[in-house]
């Protein structure tokens, strides 16, 4: 026999021999050894050793394990005994046990769901192979200890970086805001003439596919976008449009415009749900002749993604970028007429944001993307912890409350010879058993609740049944919680002195009542805080919805997708629609005072101050003469666009811009923008919120012009359904090859505050959950107390106590605790909510009434819970209680 260099790991072999049935040992060890040497040959010795362990672990199966070793062992017999006793004590007091386990299970289920959510939020953009090398490039402005960051950069910077920064392997620009065809478009295949509205378009350089390691189903990362007018579509879109053919090489037309014909260069897998970048159509920036991809040093329109060379240090790369900026970029910016370059030299730098940080945005980069909230992750984590704690507290509480029942058992066990450690083990294993049952229940509850939770949180999470870590971590959870929550009852119960308990001297433990009271206080304090949070969110939401915005969001209907029509047809459609009854004004525009409209910002100066300073940034909207009327906005000074004043060099500004210009008499003033276009102010419109109500109204300049995409109507109709049918009919007559798509402005407005709505609903849900858990505990405690004081009640009644007097007497103890909890919770809740709302604009007032409602509702609920048992006790015939001696 040849001498072998490697041998199977001896420890694993010994382990196997220990647990394996003797009659199997020979064949199994032989098989594994053969496998081991085969693996050494094919792979490596290390792999082979690892694999040997894997195989050994996989032999721990019922059929292969020797049975005789554990049989008749005392430990096992005792363990079986403990489990049997636990089961008996569960089934002896069914109601009590089901409250104990059910409350526990509910807590765990809530925790599971939150844990899934938190895990999902933390998992964003963590799936790349070159995880550490992928960055988003952002600007950084450091001034006086404050740091501001934002994404947008100049287009030509790409070439400069590629040529001068060797650390950078690849760099790609993307256009993620609604410019050109980014955003949503009407799409058709070349041979079809029916337009379908699709969302999720953005522009990117071909390199993006490689940087973000986008998985291609058809085509390659290198070629798919490397020719003009190419695009990459997602698997979903490919299945929808090209179910029975190879999509690569097919053409699609955007917005019915033959010049916007794109050839499918590749099909990618859909973006994973936990990618911050989402979209179904990537349009190439390569070889474009106008619009996206062509803008020069004037404008910052692009979000840059980059992949560094292996081993490149991001800090050093940032320094290199700064040098490159000073040597190559500054001159260009000067030529492009940028002001404030000296300030830029002093305060501006670049920051490479690791891709995994983009979603939760810990660096607070200002961008257009969807973000999760790190705060929300923390808040939810905390809520999960607290709910779990509540459930554990309940468990401990209920276990110790019932100790009198177990006292005799403990005494007897001690007499028969149990030592304290045995008893502790017994009660610990009992609570682990409880816990395991609770976790099974919790899994069932969580699975049932998951769809509701998903719609609450706006996610699509799945139970990770088949992930390798799921079962083991549940097991670990059962053990940890079981031991933690069993520890106090175990120590407490095992302390009993047998001679005392058997004589019946020892009562139900006065010394535990302090602990129990503390726990009840804690539970209710948490509950009240959650109720406060839910009410505050609700009030904040109501405040936003009822805020007078400066325009009339209730009366406006938007008809979408006009960009496929030529301008003559738009005018015709508009006129036709104005003839529909109840429609008073109509305007075609691209700008809406809600999220999702277009944004164009420019810097402005008073004409005579152009070269003196940096000016200020203001949004620039192109609107027509009907815009203000259609949205119900009011002019405070000057006049609207009409006839004479419909000139593209006349502008209407908002009050905020007028304030920025610092003029006594804004109407008639001359204003100039960064492209040296001069305007005359003809009117001032009352400030209206066109961004979040939680911010302030920014400066806005309205220029005369016709819009392209959205037809907004001011409708005052008693029968909105009829009006919509009429509108739809007009649309069908004009544009038969495109479906009628509309949206109410107030719905769009509500969507802007989705995060707040969700926070409100989630707080509400968890408040209810924690109330239920706390009340279950309180109910069981009161039931127990009533049982214990049964005789006392009987005697009191005989001596003439009234029903209400007795009920009050019994409830008093608990209500004291609840009151303490309420008074503890109110200041804490106030502080928390104050921090949660932060310094937003239009913040809801934290009034006393609000806290009073929260406190009162907790008290009422608690009272109702307790009175079920106390009333029952007060109403029983005293004979029933006193007879049973």
């Amino acid at each position, binding site marked *: 026999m040849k001498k072998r260099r490697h041998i199977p790991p001896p420890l694993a072999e010994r382990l196997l021999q220990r647990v394996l049935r003797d009659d199997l040992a020979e*064949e*199994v060890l032989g098989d594994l*050894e053969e496998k081991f040497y085969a693996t050494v040959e094919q792979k490596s010795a290390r792999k082979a050793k690892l694999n040997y362990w894997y195989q050994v672990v996989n032999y721990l199966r019922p059929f292969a394990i020797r049975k005789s070793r554990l049989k008749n062992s005392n430990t096992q017999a005792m363990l079986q005994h403990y489990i049997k006793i636990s089961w008996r004590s569960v089934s002896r007091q069914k109601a009590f046990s089901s409250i104990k386990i059910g409350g526990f299970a509910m807590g765990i289920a809530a925790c599971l769901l939150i844990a899934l959510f938190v895990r999902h939020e933390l998992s964003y953009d963590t799936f790349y192979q070159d995880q550490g090398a992928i960055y988003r490039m952002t600007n950084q402005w450091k001034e006086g200890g404050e740091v501001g960051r934002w994404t947008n950069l100049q287009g030509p910077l790409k070439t400069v970086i590629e040529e001068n920064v060797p650390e950078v392997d690849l760099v790609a620009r993307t256009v993620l805001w609604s410019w050109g065809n980014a955003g949503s478009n009407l799409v058709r295949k070349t041979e079809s003439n029916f337009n379908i509205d699709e969302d999720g378009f953005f522009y990117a350089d071909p390199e993006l596919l490689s940087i973000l390691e986008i998985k291609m189903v058809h085509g390659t990362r290198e070629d798919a976008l490397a020719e003009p007018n190419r695009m990459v579509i997602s698997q979903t879109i490919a299945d929808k449009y090209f179910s029975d053919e190879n999509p690569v090489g097919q053409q699609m037309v955007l917005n019915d415009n033959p010049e916007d014909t794109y050839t499918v260069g590749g099909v990618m897998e859909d973006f994973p749900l936990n990618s911050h970048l989402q979209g179904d159509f990537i349009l190439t920036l390569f070889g474009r002749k106008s619009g996206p991809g062509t803008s020069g040093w004037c404008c910052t329109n692009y979000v840059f993604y980059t992949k560094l060379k292996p081993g490149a240090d991001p800090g050093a790369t940032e320094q290199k970028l700064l040098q490159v900026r000073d040597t190559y970029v500054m001159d260009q910016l000067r030529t492009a007429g940028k002001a404030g370059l000296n300030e830029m030299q002093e305060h501006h730098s670049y920051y490479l944001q690791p891709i995994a940080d983009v979603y939760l945005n810990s660096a607070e980069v200002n961008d257009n993307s969807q973000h999760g909230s790190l705060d929300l992750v923390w808040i939810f984590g905390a809520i999960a912890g607290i709910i779990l704690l509540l459930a554990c507290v309940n468990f401990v509480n209920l276990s110790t409350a019932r100790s009198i029942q177990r006292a005799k058992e403990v005494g007897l066990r001690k007499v028969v010879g149990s030592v304290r450690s045995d008893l502790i083990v017994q009660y610990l294993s009992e609570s682990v058993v409880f816990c395991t049952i609770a976790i099974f229940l919790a899994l069932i509850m969580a699975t049932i609740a998951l769809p509701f939770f998903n719609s609450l949180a706006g996610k699509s999470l799945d139970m990770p049944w088949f992930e390798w870590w799921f079962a083991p971590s549940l097991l670990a959870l059962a053990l940890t919680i079981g031991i933690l929550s069993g520890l106090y009852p175990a120590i407490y119960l095992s302390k009993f002195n047998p001679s005392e308990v058997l004589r019946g001297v020892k009562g139900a433990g006065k010394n535990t009542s302090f602990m129990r009271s503390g726990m009840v206080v804690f539970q209710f304090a948490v509950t009240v805080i959650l109720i406060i949070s839910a009410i505050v969110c609700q009030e904040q939401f109501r405040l936003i919805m009822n805020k007078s915005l400066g325009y009339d969001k209730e009366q406006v209907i938007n008809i979408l997708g006009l960009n496929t029509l030529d301008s003559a047809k738009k005018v015709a459609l508009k006129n036709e629609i104005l003839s529909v009854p109840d429609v008073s004004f109509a305007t075609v525009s691209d700008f809406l005072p809600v999220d999702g409209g277009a944004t164009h910002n420019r810097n402005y100066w008073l004409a005579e101050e152009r070269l003196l300073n940096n000016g200020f940034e203001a949004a620039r909207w192109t609107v027509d003469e009907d815009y203000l009327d259609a949205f119900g906005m009011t002019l405070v000074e000057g006049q609207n666009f009409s006839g004479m004043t419909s000139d593209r060099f006349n502008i209407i500004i908002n009050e905020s811009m007028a304030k920025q210009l610092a003029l006594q008499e804004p109407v008639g003033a001359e204003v100039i923008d960064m492209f040296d276009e001069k305007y005359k102010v003809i009117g001032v419109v009352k400030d209206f919120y066109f961004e979040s109500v939680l911010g302030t109204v920014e400066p806005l300049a309205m220029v005369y012009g016709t819009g392209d995409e959205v037809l907004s109507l001011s409708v005052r109709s008693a029968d909105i359904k009829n009006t919509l049918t009429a509108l739809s009919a007009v649309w069908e007559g004009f544009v038969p090859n495109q479906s009628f798509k509309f949206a109410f402005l107030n719905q769009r407005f509500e969507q802007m505050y989705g995060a707040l709505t969700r926070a409100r609903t989630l707080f509400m849900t968890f408040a209810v959950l924690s109330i239920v858990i706390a009340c279950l505990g309180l109910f069981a405690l009161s039931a127990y107390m009533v049982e214990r004081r049964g005789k006392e009640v009987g005697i009191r009644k005989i001596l003439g106590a009234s029903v209400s007097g007795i009920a009050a007497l019994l409830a008093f103890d608990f209500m004291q605790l609840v009151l303490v909890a309420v008074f503890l919770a109110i200041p804490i809740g106030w502080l928390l909510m104050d921090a949660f709302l932060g310094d937003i604009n239009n913040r809801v007032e934290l009034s006393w009434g609000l806290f009073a409602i929260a406190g009162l509702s907790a008290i009422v609920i608690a009272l109702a819970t307790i009175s079920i048992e106390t009333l029952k006790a007060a109403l029983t015939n005293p004979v029933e209680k006193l007879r049973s001696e």
Partner: protein
Amino acid sequence: MKETKLGEFEEVLLLLVGILGEEAYSFKVAEEFESQTKREVSIGAVHSTLNRLEEKGFLESEMGQATAERGGRRKRIYTITASGQRALETSRDFRVSLWSQFPAFATGKVNFG
């Protein structure tokens, strides 16, 4: 009476035992399974299933030759019994009958490309 239905994994293993003939012992069956299906499987899982098939009476086994690469240990060789054969045939006939009821397949229109 033991369950006499075949699971998917059981069916595959039974077939592999047939294919391997004299060489049908746990390690070889596991190897063959991995190379034929490109799926990972542990020897323990295979062994446990072979054991179960033996209990059901579809397989029988005896200890075979010892070789050097297994440290001079003998191996357990499995062979298919008549009832194992029958179970395989039943299972195949069932599939075939299902396929023949599948209209797209019957008319030859189904495309597996």
